[in-house]
C-alpha cells in the first residue's frame, strides 16, 4: 500500500527557527509568525497498515517527535504549506536509510520498484500571498533535482493533506541497441558530435563532444571492420576520448612542442627533479594512478590528489560539491591497492555572493541561473556533508572571489591518503588485473544520474547542458565501501586491482583496467541498476556515484563476496578480464560492443594545436601619498579575498581521526590560515604539511608569472608551517576557459612553461594533476541578450610536505611580547593585479590592474626556505606566516589578530628595492615570510638565515596596536587590534 508518515517535532525545533529567520530575509521581515518543519516518508510497498504503524515508531525518538500516519485532521491552522521532495531517480539518502531500517525491523526485503521517498514540509504562518509562498519555495528547492508542492490552508483542508506523491522512476525507454549510421553528410555528422545521437522521437541524447576529425576516425575504423558502430560503442568512445578523460589539450602537439605540454613540461619537470634528487628522491608513484604518492616513512606512503567539479556545481551546487569531494576520495581509495583517506582539502572560486545580476541559460529566460549566494551556500554545504559524513578531516581550504566565476564556479576538492608500502606481501602501490579475474562492481547501483558528465564538462555550459549530468553523492554508501576495502579486503589480498568509477562510469573504468590484462568481456545485464528500464548505453556510461571496479581472482571471489555482504556493500560480477585485445560488451545474448583496445585508447587522432601570442598593457593607478595607511589596511581586511571564513572551517570537521596538529583556524583571534599540519599515523610523530597557491588575478597580466607565483605561494605556505624544502611535492589543477581559442592556449602554454621552470628550480616534483579546460558560461542576461562569461585562467597548486616531527610545526599567532619580528625575502614594486589595486579600482570605479606582477626568483627563495626549515628544526621560530595576498601589512595583521598581541615594526631596513609606502605595505612580492623569534635566540636565528636577505624589523608588544613606521621613520599604520578583527570578520556574518 501507499502511506505517508509525517514526523512532527514536539519540542522547539532549532531548524524551524533558523529557517524562519532565513525566510524573513527574503523580504518578509515581521510577516512570518511561525514555521514548522516535518520530515515525511512516503511508503510505496506491499506492507500492511499494522506494519506501517510499527515502521513509523522506528522513525521517531518519542522524546522529540511524534509520528502521524496519513493524518491531516490534527493539523493546526497555517497559511502555506511548502513540500519539497526529490524528482524521480535523484539519490534520496534519507529515503534509502528509512527503507533499510524498516526492512531490518520487519525482517523483509522490499521488492524491486518498491521504495520509501523522503520529503520535507514547511508549514508557514504569516501574512503572505501565493507569490510570497512561491518565493520561499524557490529559496528552498532546485528544480533540476527537486519537486515542490505549495498549498494554502484552504487547499490543504480541501485536499485532505499534501497528498501522496511517489517519485518512482518510470522509464519506457527503448531498451534495444541501435546502430548509428556515420556515413552521412558532414553537417549531420557534426550534429551527432555536438548534440548527441538522435533518438527515435527525433530528440538528441546529449553532447558527445566529438568533433569532425574524431568522428572521421571513428567512421574509418568501423568502415574498416565493415559495419556501423552501435550507440553503445559511439557513446563509449566519446567518453574515453573526451577532453575530460584524455586531456588532449595537454597531450597533443602544440606549436613547436611536439610531445605536447604534459610530456614536455609537467611530466618532464618531475623526471628532471627526480633525477637531480637521486637517492633523495621521495616520489613513489607519479601520474600513473588515481593519485600521486610520496614516501611518508619506512612503512607508509602518502598520496595526494585534487580534482574539480565545476559544471555540475553550477547547476546543483550542493550535489556538485558533495559529489566532487566523495569523488576525489575515491581517487584515494582507488590508488594502488587502496589508500585510506586521511585529509580533505577544498577551494571555492566564486562570484561575490551579494552580486544581484540575473542570468539565464536560455534565450527564453526560463532557466534562471542560481544566484552566487545560493551557489556559495550550496558548495559549502556539499563539502560539509561529503567530508563530515565520511569521517575524513577537512584540514585546509580557501575562498577566492572574482566576478568572472559568476557563470561557472570552480569547486576544487582534494584528498590525502595513507597506504602501507606493502600489503599481504605485495607492493601496495602497484596493481594488475590478470586474465581470468572477475570484473566486479562494488558500492552503489547504476541509475540515470550523471549521464554525459565527462563529455558535458568538456563543453562550455549553455541551455543544452543536461540535467542528468547532476548527481548527488551518498557518503555513507561510500563510507561502507571504503572501510570494507581499505580496512579489510586490501590487507587480506582479496583483489588484484581496483579503480574508481568516475567520469564515463563503467565504460572508462573497465576499459582502463583492461589495459592491465589486455582485454575484457562484460555482461551488461548483470550490472545492478537502481530502477528498471535503463537503456544499455546509459548503464555503460552512467556516472552514478559510490562505485569502484575491482579485479578479483576467481579463487578469492567467495571470500570477497562474503566480506562485502557482511559490511552491507553490494558486490557483483559483471564480466571477466582477458587477453583478447578487445573490449566486448554483451547484453543478454546480443553483443553490443566489440572494439579493439588499441583503437579505443589510442585511436584518437592527434591534433596540431596552434597558439597565438597575446600581451596586455593595463593602466596604472596614480600613486597615493598618504600620511596614514591605517584605514587602508582596515579596508583591505574587509575584502572578501582577505576576510575570515571561519563559518566554513568551523562547520567542517577537522579533528576526526585524531591527527589534527595545525588547525584551519588559529590562535586567540581564530584567524584562517593557508597552511595545515596533520599527523596521519596515530603512533608516529611524523606529519604532513598542506598548503596551496592560487593567483588567477595575475593571469590578466601574464600567466607565466601567475603560475610561478602559485607554485612559490604553495611552497612558501608549507615552509612557513614548518615543511622541509627538500620534501615538498606538488599537484597542478588547471581550470582554463575557451581552450579552443589560440590566445587562451597561448596563455596556457606560458603557464605550463612556468610550471616546468619553477618546479625544476625549486626541485619540487609534480606528482599528480588534472585539468578542466572549458569553464565558460554561454547564456543570456536580464534583457535576453547573449552573454559569455569565462573564468580567468586559473591554476591551483597544492603542496604537500612530510615533516619529521609534528611538534615542530609552526603556527601564525604571535606568542609573546618582546619576541623579535623578522622579514625574510625581498620586497619589490610588484603591485600589479594586487588586492590593493583591486581595492582602489573599486573605490574609484576604474580598472587599475597595473602591469608589474610579482616575479619569482626561485633560486634565492629556495635558499631562504631551506635555511628557514633549519631554523624551525632548532625551534627558533615562535610564529611564522607566508606573505601572500594583500602583502606585508595583511600578513602582519593576521599574526597580530591571531595572537591578540600588538606589534611594532619599522620598514627602514626592509630588504629589497627602495620603495614607496604602498609598495612596502601591499606589494605581493613572492619569497617572503614573517617570523618571530624569542629574544634569546636572536643570534642563533640570524646565523641560520645569514646567507639570505632578511631584516629584524621590530617586536611583538603587549599593546593593542598594529604599528608600522615607514622608511623615513614616520608612523604610517596605527591600527587597533579590535578594529582589525572587526574588519576581518565583517563578511559572512549571517552565514
Amino acid at each position, binding site marked *: 500500500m501507499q502511506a505517508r508518515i509525517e514526523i512532527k517535532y514536539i*519540542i522547539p525545533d*532549532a*531548524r524551524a*527557527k*533558523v*529557517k524562519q529567520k532565513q525566510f524573513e530575509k527574503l523580504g518578509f521581515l515581521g510577516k512570518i509568525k511561525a514555521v514548522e518543519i516535518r*520530515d515525511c516518508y512516503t511508503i510505496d510497498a506491499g506492507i500492511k497498515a499494522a506494519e506501517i504503524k510499527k515502521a513509523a515508531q*522506528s*522513525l521517531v*525518538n518519542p*522524546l*522529540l*517527535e511524534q509520528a502521524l500516519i496519513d493524518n491531516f485532521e490534527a493539523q493546526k491552522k497555517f497559511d502555506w504549506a511548502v513540500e519539497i521532495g526529490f524528482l524521480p531517480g535523484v539519490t534520496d*539518502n*534519507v529515503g534509502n*536509510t*528509512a527503507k533499510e*531500517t524498516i526492512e*531490518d*525491523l520487519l525482517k523483509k526485503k522490499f521488492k524491486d520498484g518498491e521504495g520509501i521517498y523522503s520529503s520535507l514540509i514547511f508549514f508557514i504562518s504569516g501574512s503572505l500571498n501565493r507569490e510570497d509562498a512561491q518565493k520561499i519555495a524557490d529559496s528552498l528547492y532546485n528544480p533540476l533535482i527537486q519537486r515542490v508542492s505549495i498549498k494554502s490552508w484552504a487547499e490543504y483542508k480541501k485536499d485532505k493533506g499534501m497528498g501522496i506523491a511517489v517519485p518512482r522512476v518510470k522509464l519506457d525507454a527503448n531498451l534495444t541497441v541501435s546502430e548509428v549510421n556515420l556515413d552521412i553528410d558532414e553537417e549531420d555528422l557534426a550534429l551527432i558530435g555536438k548534440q548527441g545521437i538522435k533518438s527515435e522521437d527525433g530528440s538528441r541524447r546529449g553532447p558527445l563532444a566529438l568533433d569532425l576529425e574524431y568522428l572521421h576516425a571513428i567512421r574509418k575504423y568501423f568502415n574498416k571492420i565493415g559495419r556501423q558502430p552501435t550507440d553503445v560503442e559511439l557513446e563509449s568512445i566519446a567518453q574515453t576520448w573526451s577532453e575530460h578523460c584524455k586531456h588532449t589539450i595537454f597531450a597533443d602537439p602544440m606549436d613547436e612542442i611536439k610531445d605536447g605540454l604534459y610530456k614536455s613540461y609537467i611530466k618532464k619537470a618531475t623526471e628532471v627533479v627526480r633525477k637531480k634528487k637521486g637517492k633523495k628522491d621521495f616520489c613513489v608513484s607519479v601520474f600513473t594512478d588515481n593519485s600521486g604518492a610520496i614516501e611518508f616513512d619506512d612503512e607508509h606512503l602518502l598520496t595526494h590528489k585534487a580534482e574539480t567539479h565545476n559544471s555540475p556545481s553550477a547547476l546543483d551546487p550542493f550535489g556538485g560539491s558533495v559529489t566532487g569531494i566523495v569523488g576525489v576520495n575515491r581517487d584515494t581509495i582507488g590508488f594502488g591497492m587502496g589508500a585510506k583517506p586521511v585529509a580533505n582539502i577544498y577551494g571555492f572560486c566564486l562570484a561575490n555572493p551579494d552580486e544581484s545580476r540575473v542570468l539565464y541559460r536560455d534565450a527564453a529566460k526560463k532557466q534562471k541561473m542560481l544566484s552566487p549566494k545560493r551557489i556559495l551556500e550550496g558548495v559549502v554545504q556539499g563539502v*560539509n556533508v561529503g567530508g*563530515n*559524513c*565520511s*569521517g575524513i578531516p577537512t584540514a585546509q581550504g580557501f575562498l577566492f572571489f572574482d566576478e568572472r566565476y559568476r557563470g561557472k564556479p570552480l569547486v576544487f576538492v582534494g584528498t590525502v591518503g595513507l597506504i602501507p608500502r606493502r600489503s599481504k606481501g605485495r607492493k601496495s602501490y602497484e596493481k594488475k588485473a590478470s586474465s581470468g579475474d572477475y570484473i566486479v562492481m562494488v558500492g552503489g547501483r547504476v541509475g540515470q544520474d550523471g549521464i554525459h558528465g565527462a563529455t558535458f564538462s568538456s563543453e562550455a555550459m549553455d541551455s543544452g547542458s543536461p540535467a542528468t549530468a547532476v548527481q548527488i553523492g551518498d557518503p*555513507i554508501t561510500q*563510507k*561502507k565501501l571504503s*572501510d570494507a576495502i581499505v580496512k579489510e579486503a586490501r590487507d587480506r589480498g582479496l583483489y588484484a586491482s581496483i579503480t574508481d568509477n568516475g567520469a564515463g562510469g563503467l565504460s572508462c573504468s573497465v576499459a582502463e583496467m583492461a589495459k592491465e590484462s589486455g582485454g575484457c568481456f562484460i555482461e551488461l545485464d548483470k550490472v545492478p541498476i537502481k530502477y528498471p528500464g535503463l537503456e544499455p548505453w546509459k548503464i555503460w556510461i552512467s556516472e552514478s556515484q559510490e562505485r569502484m571496479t575491482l579485479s578479483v581472482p576467481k579463487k578469492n571471489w567467495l571470500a570477497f563476496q562474503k566480506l562485502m555482504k*557482511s*559490511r*552491507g556493500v553490494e558486490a557483483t560480477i559483471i564480466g571477466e578480464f582477458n587477453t583478447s585485445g578487445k573490449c566486448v560488451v554483451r547484453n543478454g545474448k546480443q553483443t553490443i560492443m566489440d572494439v579493439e583496445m588499441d583503437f579505443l585508447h589510442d585511436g584518437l587522432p592527434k591534433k596540431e594545436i596552434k597558439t597565438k601570442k597575446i600581451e596586455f598593457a593595463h593602466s596604472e593607478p596614480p600613486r597615493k601619498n598618504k600620511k596614514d595607511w591605517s584605514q587602508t589596511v582596515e579596508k583591505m581586511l574587509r575584502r572578501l579575498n582577505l576576510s575570515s571564513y571561519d563559518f566554513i*572551517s*568551523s*562547520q*567542517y*570537521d*577537522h*579533528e*576526526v*581521526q*585524531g591527527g*589534527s596538529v*595545525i588547525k584551519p583556524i*588559529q*590562535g*586567540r583571534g*581564530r584567524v584562517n590560515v593557508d597552511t595545515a599540519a596533520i*599527523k596521519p599515523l*596515530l603512533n608516529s610523530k611524523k606529519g604532513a604539511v598542506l598548503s596551496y597557491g592560487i593567483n588567477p588575478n595575475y593571469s590578466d597580466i601574464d600567466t607565466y608569472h601567475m603560475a610561478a607565483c602559485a607554485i612559490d605561494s604553495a611552497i612558501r605556505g608549507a615552509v612557513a608551517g614548518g615543511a622541509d624544502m627538500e620534501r615538498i611535492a606538488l599537484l597542478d589543477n588547471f581550470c582554463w576557459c575557451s581552450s579552443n581559442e589560440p590566445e587562451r592556449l597561448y596563455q596556457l602554454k606560458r603557464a605550463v612553461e612556468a610550471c616546468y621552470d619553477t618546479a625544476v628550480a625549486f626541485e619540487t616534483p609534480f606528482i599528480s594533476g588534472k585539468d578542466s579546460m572549458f569553464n565558460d558560461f554561454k547564456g543570456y542576461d536580464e534583457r535576453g541578450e547573449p552573454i559569455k562569461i569565462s573564468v580567468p585562467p586559473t591554476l591551483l597548486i597544492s603542496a604537500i610536505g612530510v615533516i619529521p616531527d609534528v*611538534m615542530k*610545526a609552526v*603556527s601564525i*599567532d604571535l*606568542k*609573546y611580547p618582546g619576541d623579535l619580528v623578522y622579514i625574510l625575502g625581498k620586497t619589490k614594486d610588484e603591485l600589479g593585479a594586487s588586492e590593493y589595486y583591486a581595492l582602489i579600482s573599486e573605490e574609484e570605479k576604474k580598472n587599475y590592474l597595473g602591469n608589474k606582477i610579482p616575479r619569482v626568483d626561485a633560486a634565492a627563495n629556495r635558499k631562504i626556505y631551506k635555511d628557514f626549515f633549519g631554523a624551525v628544526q632548532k*625551534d627558533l621560530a615562535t*610564529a611564522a606566516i607566508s606573505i601572500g595576498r594583500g602583502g606585508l601589512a595583511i600578513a602582519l595583521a593576521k599574526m597580530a589578530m591571531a*595572537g591578540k598581541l600588538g606589534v611594532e615594526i619599522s620598514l627602514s631596513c626592509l630588504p629589497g628595492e627602495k620603495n614607496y609606502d604602498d609598495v612596502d605595505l601591499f606589494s605581493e612580492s613572492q619569497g617572503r615570510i614573517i617570523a618571530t623569534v*624569542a629574544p634569546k635566540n636572536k643570534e642563533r636565528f640570524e646565523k641560520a638565515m645569514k646567507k639570505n636577505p632578511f631584516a629584524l624589523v621590530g617586536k611583538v608588544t603587549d599593546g593593542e596596536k598594529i604599528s608600522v613606521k615607514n622608511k623615513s621613520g614616520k608612523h604610517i599604520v596605527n591600527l587597533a587590534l579590535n578594529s582589525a578583527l572587526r574588519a576581518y570578520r565583517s563578511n559572512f556574518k549571517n552565514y
Partner: protein
Amino acid sequence: MKNPKALVLSGYGLNCEEETKFAFEKAGARADIVHINDLIADKKRLRNYQILSFPGGFSYGDDTGSGKAYANKVRNHLREELERFVGENKLVVGICNGFQIITNLGLLPGALTFNDSARYLDRWVDIKIEGESPWLEGIDTLMIPIAHGEGKYYADEKTLAELKKGKRIAARYAKGEICRYQDLAANPNGSLEDIAGVLGYEGRVLGMMPHPERAMFFHQLPHWPYLKEKYKREGKPMPKDGPGIKIFQNAVKYFA
C-alpha cells in the same frame, strides 16, 4: 584485571573507531574494533569484553535523525546481550554519535536534538565534571572538542530532576581555559542547562557529546604551539598527552 578488554563498535558510517581504540590501548586496555554485523553474527562475543564503546561518527549519515537507524539495528538484534552487559559490573561509553545512539536506545535518558544554529559545528569547549562515575573519577574540568550537528541535550523536567538527584549529569559546558583563549561562549549548541553528557547504571554508562579521543595528545589542543612556548620559557617539560586520555585511563583503572 590489569588490561580490561574494550570492544569498539564500527560500521554503517561510524568513523571514530580507530582513534577510540587507540585511546583505550594508550590507556592500557586491550581493544578490538568489531563491525556490528560481526557482533550480530556472534552475539556472545560481547561477553568477552569489560568495556563497550559506541564511538563517534555519522552512522547512516544521520538520516532519519542522528543515531536513530543504528540504534534500531542494535535494538532489533542485540538488545538482550546489551541488557546483560550493562546488568553486569561493566562499562559503556557513547561518544558523540555513540551518545546519540545510546539515548535513542533508551540506555541513557534524554535526547539529542539539532544545535541552536541548526548547523554542524567543530570547536573546542571546556566541561566541568559533575556526576559520579568510574569514567570521571578525579577529573574536575576538561578542555575537549565537539563536532556535531545534533548535540543539544534535551530532557523533560522529571528526567532532569532525577538526573540531578542521582548525580547523573556527567558534565556541563562551562567557561574555562579554552573558551577564554578563543573567546567563545561556554555552551556551543544550546544544550539544556549546559549538559554535555549524562550517566546511567550507577555511573557505569557514560554518554557525552565531546570527544575525549580527540584530546588524547597534546598536539590536538588548539593552542599547543602557544603552550609549547610557554612551557619552554618556564623551563617546564612539554606534555605528550592531552587531557582527554584521563577518561580512558579511568576505565582501565576501574578494572584494576
